[in-house]
């Protein structure tokens, strides 16, 4: 065989190799994609839901993308990504950010309903090498966190719902433990631009400055609570404010806090409501988010511009079915049973039936 033929064969092989992925996607992959954007703290249950749902519907390929809850919605409303299902760790974000925002080039809002379908609780994730791991308990945790040799991680309240909820929990702790200095001792001196608390009509408002930057080594701040876990693993921090479902699924020790402050129970809705977190974004005019303390409730919606609304409805249907709820319970994400719609009239027909 001549040199030239050899080279031709080689070229052909290379071209064939380059074309292979195209052939692959063209022939064998005829599944319908179902893009689902979920809160970072819901990634674990979501993967289990995906596996079961794809077993039931082999022709559907659920594609999961995880972000902080606020960013989950922005993916659709600002970055104009097309998603079939959105799941956030704070149900109030859906009406706040989607009901009054219209889809580009139309006058339809991005969403006009959501379902409350699961709860969670806030506590402290730690490992067996964390300082004072053997001593910490429900009644002394805030004392341990303020010890000079203990480093604590918290999610960025401006980005992750886990962050502003951690502030709420620590503020609620003051009346729960009858100790008015807890919040101040935990966070009073931890940030370059301080976080302040104002009280009016019995409502305590925590003001988060537009620049949130920790001062010194004692407090670590990350954009997403899940990233705190790397710091926990490497011993950089000893405790991280985290959702119970995340800590349990990923195998961390988890200190449960009393229901009066862990934002888990609807029985305490009223007292949770005495605490608010306000973002003081002076220069950033578009939103001045304000969050009122309330039980942690995960919300799900189908955007009005979803590419596959019917399959999306089928997935939501599965999520709130007995089967879906069993998966949630197994992943330490207590389901709300039955799921509640905030605007039942706007629900897709497929879901209306199920809720009745």
């Amino acid at each position, binding site marked *: 065989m001549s040199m030239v033929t050899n080279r031709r064969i080689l070229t052909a092989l290379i071209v064939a190799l380059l074309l292979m992925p195209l052939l692959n996607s063209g022939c064998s992959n005829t599944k319908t994609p179902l893009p689902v954007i979920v809160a970072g703290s819901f990634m674990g249950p979501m993967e289990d839901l995906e596996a079961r749902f794809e077993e039931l519907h082999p022709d559907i390929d659920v594609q999961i993308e995880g972000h902080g809850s606020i960013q989950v919605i*922005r993916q659709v409303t*600002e970055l104009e990504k097309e998603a079939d299902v959105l799941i956030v760790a704070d149900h109030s974000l859906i009406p706040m950010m989607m009901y009054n925002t219209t889809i580009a080039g139309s006058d339809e809002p991005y969403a006009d309903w959501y379902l409350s379908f699961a709860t969670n609780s806030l506590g402290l994730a730690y490992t067996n090498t964390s300082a004072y791991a053997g001593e910490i308990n429900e009644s002394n945790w805030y004392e341990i966190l303020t010890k000079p040799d203990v480093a604590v991680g918290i999610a960025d309240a401006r*980005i992750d719902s886990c962050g502003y909820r951690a502030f709420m929990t620590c503020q609620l702790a003051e009346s729960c433990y009858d100790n008015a200095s807890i919040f101040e001792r935990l966070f009073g001196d931890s940030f370059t631009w301080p976080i302040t608390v104002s009280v009016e009509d019995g409502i305590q408002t925590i003001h988060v400055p537009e620049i949130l930057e920790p001062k010194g*080594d004692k407090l670590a701040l990350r954009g997403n609570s899940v990233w705190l876990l*790397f710091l926990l693993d490497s011993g950089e921090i000893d405790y991280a404010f985290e959702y119970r479902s995340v800590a349990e699924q990923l195998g961390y020790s988890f200190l449960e806090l009393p229901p009066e402050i862990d934002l888990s129970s609807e029985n305490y809705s009223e007292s949770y409501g005495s605490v608010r977190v306000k973002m003081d974004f002076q220069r*950033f005019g578009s939103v001045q988010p304000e969050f009122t303390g309330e039980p942690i409730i995960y919300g799900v919606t189908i955007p009005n511009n979803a590419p596959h609304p019917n399959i999306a409805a089928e997935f939501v249907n599965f999520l709130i079915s007995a089967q879906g709820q069993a998966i949630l319970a197994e992943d330490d994400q207590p389901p709300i049973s039955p799921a509640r719609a905030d605007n039942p009239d706007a629900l897709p027909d497929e879901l209306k039936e199920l809720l009745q």
Partner: protein
Amino acid sequence: MIKKTIKYLHQRRLTLTFLLIGLVLLLFIFIPLGKMIFSSSPSTLWNTLLDKEVRDSIWLSIYTALIATAFGLFFGVPLAYFLARHSFPGKRLVESLIDVPIVVPHIAAGIALLFVFGKSYLAGKAFDAIGIHFRDAVAGIVIAMIFVSVPFLINSAKQGFEEVDERLEKVARTLGASPWQTFFKISLPLARRSIFGGTVMMWARSISEFGAVLVLTSHPSIASILVYERLEAHGLEYALPVASVLIIITIVIFVALRYFTYRSKKQ
């Protein structure tokens, strides 16, 4: 006239073809950059530049990348020279390993560094003794930048040294120059263009680093992390101008560097 033009074009058909092909790529690079820069009005850009947080973060990016590059030069150039002049069993493997940081997902690189330079680990403890910390500190930004970008400098410098004719070094030695003199007077100056190119690449790649730095040091925030934070906390409208300002500043620096290297080449 027409005939002449056709003949001219015919003679230049290789040049013209390549120009057309190249143009596609140029547009691919320029259009997104241009769109990004012009997405914000000049007044927004100016206000962004007046924002102290933005200026601080861009300055932090620039100078941490400079420190990283200085470390890269100090440790990378000797290694590059060694690799260019010696062969030993396993050399190919070493050279491949040097490239690994380029392909490792950068968040994973950050985690890997955390498990060496974290306060509970060997290197972290050793540096702790002299008061250097890596989590949420400038030193953390620097090591993350070195890790992900030093391969560019090593590879470029190595190539530069390989292109220096070894006979020149031998002549210098026979004329009585010491090995150190030979390196500093012959090899280093002859390889300087490649080393300089690698240095610029390393510095540039350091400025753009995000993932590895994010894991080690979210605060103080370098520019790429500030862009991310603004995007997450305040939305696209507030993240884009920061990105645009960063792009404009790096374009200015790059054009200036090219200009000066072009001038030194001509001399």
